[in-house]
């Protein structure tokens, strides 16, 4: 098993406040890794470090190394724009572009890399992406509808299709189900399992049941530290650290 991402001694600060402390973690290729922990433990901050999403945040500082394709994304003259095409992201709130149709929403990322594509090439990518996001059957006849006219769960799958359209290797998902109803959440979970054949997926969640259902490995964060990381089975049945046990048994968080 090779690793899609290797994180070494990652620390992060917002101004003077340190939010991540010496995180070291390997993320296996084509697997689902859940990052779980109570609110404010730094889990969202952590995955946003993996595609340099904090670059525009004033006062944000990072130290340590994140290796992707053998190169440290924080040095080695990595272009964050190119990095983000390889490391896509899905957010907590579905965020389709309001004045774009379903089709345009999925195709929007294709226009960024400057390559001219014909309408039929675009249509192929849009169809493929919507199929992967399990939306094609519902929406193939409604590609011209505004993206925001869909239901919340559909909007989130549309955002997943949009992220997949630029053909990333890794998909980061920041609490992708927390704004959705249980049925929609279940569909996203199914989708995550299907996608893990081809993609490396890192999911932030505060939902332990969800982490248990979808993950190959689970990382437990507390107060900016990685407490432990192991297979889902190990974490939920026989955690090594007392704090992990306390969290999964609901004693805090």
């Amino acid at each position, binding site marked *: 098993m090779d690793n899609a991402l290797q994180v070494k001694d990652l620390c992060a600060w917002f101004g003077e406040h340190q939010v991540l402390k010496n995180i070291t973690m390997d993320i296996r290729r084509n697997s689902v890794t859940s990052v779980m922990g109570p609110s404010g433990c730094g889990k969202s901050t952590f995955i946003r470090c993996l595609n340099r*999403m904090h670059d525009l945040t004033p006062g944000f500082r990072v130290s340590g190394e994140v290796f992707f394709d053998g190169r440290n994304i924080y040095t080695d003259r990595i272009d964050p724009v190119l990095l*983000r095409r390889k490391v896509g*992201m899905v957010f907590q709130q579905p965020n389709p572009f*309001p004045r774009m149709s379903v089709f345009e929403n999925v195709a929007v*990322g294709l226009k*960024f890399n400057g390559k001219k594509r014909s309408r039929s090439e675009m249509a192929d990518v849009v169809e493929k992406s919507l199929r992967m996001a399990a939306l094609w059957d519902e929406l193939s006849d409604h590609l011209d509808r505004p993206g*925001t006219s869909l239901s919340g769960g559909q909007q989130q799958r549309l955002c997943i299709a949009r992220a997949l359209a*630029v053909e990333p290797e890794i998909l980061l998902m920041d609490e992708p189900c927390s704004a959705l109803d249980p049925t929609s959440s279940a569909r996203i979970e199914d989708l995550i399992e299907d996608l893990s054949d081809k993609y490396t997926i890192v999911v932030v969640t505060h939902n332990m049941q969800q982490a248990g259902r979808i993950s190959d490995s689970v990382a437990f964060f507390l107060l900016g530290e990685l407490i432990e990381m192991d297979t889902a089975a190990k974490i939920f049945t026989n955690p090594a650290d007392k704090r992990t046990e306390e969290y999964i048994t609901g004693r805090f968080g």
Partner: protein
Amino acid sequence: MRRGAPGNPKDALFERTTAVFAFGVLFLAVLLFALLVRESLPSIRKFGAAFLVTGTWDPVAESFGALPFLYGTVVSSFIALLIAVPLAVGSAIFINEFAPEWLKAPVGFLAELLAAVPSVIYGLWGIFVLVPVLRDYLMKPVADHLGWIPFFRGPVYGPSMLAAGMLLSIMIIPFILSVSREVLATVPRIQKEAVLSLGGTHWEMIRIVIGQHCIPGIFGATVLGLGRALGETMAVTMVIGNRPDILLSIFQPGHSMAGAIANEFTEATGELYLSALVEIGLVLFLLTFVVNLAAKGILKTMVSRASRGI
């Protein structure tokens, strides 16, 4: 149902007092409009709709048509928008999206301070700096080489439609800038991050986000700026040349509605002359009223859309 504690006399008194103030403002506006109409009645009766489409302005023959003034006001304001909108929106993008934190506040403050400069100061600066510079370094060379284009035909005097438009543009930039900045600030962060996460550049992020969220707001800001430009009197009349003719060349002098009233009011001896000037005022009042109403409406729909999160 009545608001406030029923039966509490102090609350009732307070409510009624504030209502009096509110209706007082409304009453003043209506009174202003009614007086403008009454005073312009002789002119309206004499010239009717022809007043708006006739180009003669001859106080001696008592023949009045407001078209040159209407034309001057509209064209100089349009030139002002043409210059001000790109500059103001560009500055708004720079200040909000690119400027380092320590630079944002001072630059924003100074730009908005431009709005506090009295217009007569702008006029003086226009006469002594803008007009000579424009005449020698822009209008003369352009008229010499491109004079065959009707818009750039000489002879070049200095005071002109272009000078008025440029001066106006500087005066309305602060308004368009500050509204544009607010419009940009209403864009949800998550929308910007969506573009970045797909591998968009900073420029693509701004382009998409403006297209998706800011067009109505920037249009509203533009109309607001237009409203200011239409009514500006002092600065315009100092640099536009005050010639009541309709000339296609923007290097030629023109006149404006507000300028005409300010310049000719003291000389208006006959009843009809005075009435014609008041009618210009009425037209200007209606024009700015409609423009401002449109701007408010557009801004309002935009804000309500933003608050619904779309």
